[in-house]
């Protein structure tokens, strides 16, 4: 199994190696930034549209008035105009950067796909060369080292190391092999060693790659519900400031201090929430991008957002909470039997058992009881030994060796076997088995027939092993207000025991897919938002019902279509990360909104005295930053307003740092950081820019 506890992305690189400001992406984004000046693009963003209109108006005014103005007035108007344009361009640049990061990946892949040729295997075993784009579901292709996998599919033969960095950004090669959970491969990735045969599972045009290209290029990017709500807030604020600035002129006129329109536009642009307005779509795109980097393909931005809201996580026990296989944890001998004796018998009975449980008994006996080198018959090597494999009818496995027989299996099956062989079953057996089951373990009885006497030797205690670090993880989730429910097919007692050990909040035992669906509905009725993972076709209704349904990539097509995310790694533990990414996205939005609004206070203190202290000298006392001149004050505010967008691009692409904290703590932290920070930062920034402007001798 590759679902080791350490496979969460947290332990890997949290981000791909590609640097945030990859020169290639930056170059592309610069071009895009200019292209995005098209009014149709800008109209989608009311805040930036106002800035664009402002820029056009100041440009026209500058040109019209240039003749009648003094040189200093012209320099001022030119600089304000220039930085207004920069404000628009920086916003475009931020969005282009976010898109560019995904696009760069997509472009490379699109190119490779177009060029990729596939070696399709004919039914007779020969191969033919066809373009990758012509492959359909069910085609089998041979891919050798150095070649590119032509489409999404399953490995049906062979094992190979594959470089998936093109999609995941993860440079370490991964192993893909036939059968099991590591069989899924993605088109566009490169085989590094060996040869594999891949059966194509995706229809042309519907591969992961196609979907990713569509998603990251924003071709079908729709505004998410929260983005819409936030946009309403930002538009509302823009209208308020528009009102405040438009009405300021009559008030100024009344006061005998009529204002230059360029200055009024500068004030307006500084006040409207350009920072968050400029970065809003970049934040959204980057959130999707972060999912992609974790190998999770979200079908919509809405799904990413919903994952931040999740209040209940349904987690499959096997593979998510436990390692997935039961392992030997103890040997409990019957009265009169030594533990070593039991260990040897258990060891021998398991040699024929190739299941993970059987293997775990062998290694446990070796490790804890020094059982080593015993042959199959235990009396030295004998050719007469016959392995008795596990069968559904006997529900036992073991060894027959010249009159000596040893069996291991379900307690009742072993009991029956002993009785049939004429032996007595000690009363202790039932108690021990009961005790183990009660503790959440699985008892396996071990018995032998030796010299015609049948007797029970003892019980092997098999146990689910909870992955390392799960308890801490669940504690964090609880602190974040997320309830975890473990879903398992085990009986309630067993389930409860594991749940207690792992520290989940609740348990759904003996769960059928219908139970799961019912549980989700029940949680949702109580106001909860539910996330779950699933892979089987019978999970599909539950996946569809859940607010966030993550389908395993190895799962059936039905499951994948029912969910709203697909995890390419098929790692159910990732659900937790999905929630964190969703939260991070919302936090980033909130933080920058708060920052943006808090910024305005300082801008007023820069601009209002600058506008009016000429006519109303008393207002110069509001110039608490001591800015050098009216012109430099206004310019400094405009420049700060533009530059802060650039300064915040990294944080909007990367997302604010996420910590698993209670909402109250998180609020306090973020308010301090972005609220207070947003209040103070512009005072410092504007003052510094003002110093620079006066040092340069512009004003």
């Amino acid at each position, binding site marked *: 199994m590759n679902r080791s506890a350490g496979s969460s992305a947290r332990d890997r690189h949290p981000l791909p190696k590609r640097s945030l400001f990859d020169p290639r992406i930056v170059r592309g984004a610069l071009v895009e930034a200019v292209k995005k000046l098209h009014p149709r693009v800008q109209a989608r963003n009311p805040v930036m549209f106002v800035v664009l209109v402002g820029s056009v108006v100041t440009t026209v005014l500058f040109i019209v008035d240039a003749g009648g103005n003094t040189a200093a007035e012209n320099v001022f108007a030119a600089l304000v105009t220039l930085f207004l344009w920069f404000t628009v361009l920086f916003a475009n640049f931020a969005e282009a950067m976010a898109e560019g990061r995904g696009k760069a990946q997509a472009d490379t892949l699109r190119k490779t796909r177009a060029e990729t040729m596939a070696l399709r295997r004919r039914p007779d075993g020969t191969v033919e060369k066809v373009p990758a784009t012509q492959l359909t579901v069910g085609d089998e292709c041979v891919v050798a080292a150095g070649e590119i996998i032509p489409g999404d599919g399953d490995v049906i033969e062979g094992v190979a190391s594959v470089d998936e960095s093109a999609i995941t950004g993860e440079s370490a090669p991964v192993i893909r092999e036939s059968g099991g959970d590591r069989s899924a491969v993605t088109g566009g990735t490169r085989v590094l060693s060996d040869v594999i045969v891949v059966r194509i599972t995706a229809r042309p045009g519907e591969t992961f790659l196609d979907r990713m290209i569509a998603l990251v290029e924003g071709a079908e990017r729709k505004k998410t519900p929260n983005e819409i709500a936030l946009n309403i*807030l930002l538009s509302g604020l823009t209208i308020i400031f528009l009102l405040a600035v438009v009405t300021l002129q009559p008030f100024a006129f009344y006061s005998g201090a009529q204002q230059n329109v360029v200055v009024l536009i500068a004030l307006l642009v500084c006040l409207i929430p350009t920072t968050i307005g400029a970065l809003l779509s970049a934040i959204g795109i980057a959130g999707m991008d972060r999912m992609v980097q974790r190998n999770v393909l979200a079908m919509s931005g809405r799904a990413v957002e919903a994952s931040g809201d999740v209040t209940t996580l349904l987690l499959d026990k096997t593979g998510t909470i436990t390692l997935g296989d039961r392992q030997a944890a103890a040997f409990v001998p019957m009265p009169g039997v030594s533990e070593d004796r039991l260990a040897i018998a258990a060891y021998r009975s398991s040699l024929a058992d190739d299941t993970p449980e059987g293997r775990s008994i062998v290694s446990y006996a070796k490790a804890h009881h020094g059982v080593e080198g015993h042959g199959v018959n235990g009396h030295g090597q004998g050719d007469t030994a016959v392995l008795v494999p596990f069968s559904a009818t006997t529900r036992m496995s073991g060894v027959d060796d010249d009159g000596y027989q040893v069996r291991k299996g379900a307690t009742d099956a072993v009991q029956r076997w002993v009785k049939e062989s004429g032996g007595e079953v000690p009363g202790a057996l039932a108690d021990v088995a009961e005790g183990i089951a009660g503790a959440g373990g699985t008892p396996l009885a071990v018995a032998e027939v030796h010299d015609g006497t049948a007797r029970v030797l003892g019980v092997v205690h098999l146990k689910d092993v909870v992955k390392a670090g799960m308890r801490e993880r669940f504690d964090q989730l609880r602190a974040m207000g*997320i309830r975890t429910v473990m879903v398992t097919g085990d009986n309630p007692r067993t389930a409860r025991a594991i749940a207690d050990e792992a520290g989940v909040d609740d348990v759904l035992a003996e769960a059928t897919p219908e139970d799961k669906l019912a549980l989700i509905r029940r949680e949702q009725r109580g106001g909860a938002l539910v996330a779950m993972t699933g892979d089987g076709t019978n999970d599909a209704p539950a996946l569809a019902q859940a607010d966030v349904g993550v389908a395993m990539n190895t799962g059936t097509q039905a499951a994948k279509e029912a969910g709203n995310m697909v995890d390419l790694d098929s790692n159910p533990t990732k659900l937790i990360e999905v929630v964190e990414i969703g939260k991070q996205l919302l936090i980033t939005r909130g933080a920058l909104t708060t920052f943006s609004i808090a910024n305005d206070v300082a801008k007023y203190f820069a601009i209002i005295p600058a506008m009016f202290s000429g006519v109303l000298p008393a207002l110069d006392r509001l110039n608490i930053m001591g800015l050098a001149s009216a012109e430099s004050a206004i310019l400094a505010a405009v420049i700060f307003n533009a530059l802060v967008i650039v300064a915040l691009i990294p944080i909007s692409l990367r997302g604010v740092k996420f910590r698993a904290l209670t909402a109250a703590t*998180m609020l306090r932290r973020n308010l301090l950081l972005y609220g207070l920070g947003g209040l103070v930062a512009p005072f410092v920034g504007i003052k510094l820019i003002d110093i620079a402007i006066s040092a340069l001798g512009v004003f």
Partner: protein
Amino acid sequence: MSGAGWVQFVVLIIVLLVTAPLLGRYIARVYGDEKKAPGDRVFLPVERLIYRICRVDPEREQRWTRYALSLIGFSLVSFLALFGLQRLQGSLPLNPVELPSVAPNVAFNVAVSFTTNTNWQAYGGESTMSHLTQMGGLAVQNFVSAAVGMAVMAALIRGLARRRASTLGNFWVDLTRGTVRILLPLSFLVALVLISQGVIQNFNGHTVATTVEGARQLIPGGPGASQIAIKQLGTNGGGFFDMNSAHPFENSTVVSNFVETWAILIIPFAMAFAFGRMVGDRRQGRAVFGIMLAVWGAMSIGAMLTESGGNPRLDDLGVSQTITEDQSGGYLEGKEVRFGPAASGLWAASTTGTSNGSVNSMHDSATPLGGGLAMAHMMFGEVSPGGVGVGLNGLLIMAILAVFIAGLMVGRTPEYLGKKIQAAEMKLVMLYVLAMPAVLLTFAAISAVYGNALGSLNNDGPHGLSEILYGFASAANNNGSAFAGLDSSTTWYTTTQGIAMLVGRFLLIIPVLALAGSMVRKERVPASPGTMPTHTPLFGGLVVGVVVIVAGLTFFPALALGPIVEHLSL
């Protein structure tokens, strides 16, 4: 400020802390979903009779649209009745002084003013309205317009408290219960206390006195106290006399002054506690109370200190404004000696924080900062503690706005009381937030450059701009107090103020009801550690911040050219 001034302030807070939770508990029972309420034996028969006369089925709950329709219908009928009464009073009885009918523009303004709970008085005091208009029109609206505000609040709280429901209650029932069970009994008690202090209550005409020096002085009569009690309790503010609660017959002693200040504040503050009880989480109510108290307290302290600080210009004239045992000191122009600057400042903050609008000093005469604070307090949107009912509505809107901005920072779709705030809610919230500044700034801006409007000013320079700003801040927030130097009886002002009052009333009430209608359908997400707490001091501070910053950013430029520059140039 004198030590006694501080004590007076602290005692008022203590009295509020004791009485507001008690009244809040009672109000929660009046509007709550439980069947029984205190006083049923007295009130229920009266109410049943009213329902029968008006053919209202009290059991029939209304969706928000029907609720809003009923409310608008009632306000419309009230407006028409009041308008008609004024226009016809010349030929109607109970008009002993034979006052003529009121001019149409003034009648429109007054009808709007009283049905919107503003009580802006564009008319020349005692000399315009007949007894019939006063009693049968204005006094009635003092009760019912307040009850309408409380009904909207009840509907909003139900919208937040109920889950997956569709109806918000019955407007007629809320109107009736609010009037009969809350306003009438309280008014009766307050009126008697005021009378004991010297506030008049009679049906006499003028008493002619011959003064000590032999001059003739008219001593007015009339049913003052009964109207003054409801004008304070219902945050109406329309005075019986022109000079409102500065008039000795409206507010004769320091005791009546204290009681009236309390009466202005008590219902709005009690609403916070009623809210907490009705949503089933009393901590939320206490938080809302805390927010209201903090803003009102800060503004009160500010106003008391600035007025006690005096007017520096008088120092040069050899006028002593110092505080001594023998004089209150401070800036006493437009203030009564018995109240002094402390009680006047406290009143100014209270009347502007509540949309009450009655005055016990002349705000136009206050120091620039004191007048500016009063103006800013209205511009906060009347939330500290705001008008009866509508104040709580405004504060809840602000809380929702704060939740939306900051709530994202905890990584969840913002929710208030477990209900998610999404695009539909934000639209209504922004509509609410926009309406008041839009109408205020637009009309004020035009008035600042329109020659006809400028003719109404009593002062020029920054103080004149303050008069304009104050007037529209008052109208758009349904406050009704004034920088009384402004002559608001002109056609321009009666019309624009009338529109501002209508916008400030109905463009806020309708989004609130729509919001309630949207919220009532939602499920309440159970609170968990992942929920942003909305009962903590931190959240309280956040809401205060949002209130101050939103108003500050909207009005700072205008204020800078009015009270701020006037203050800085003192």
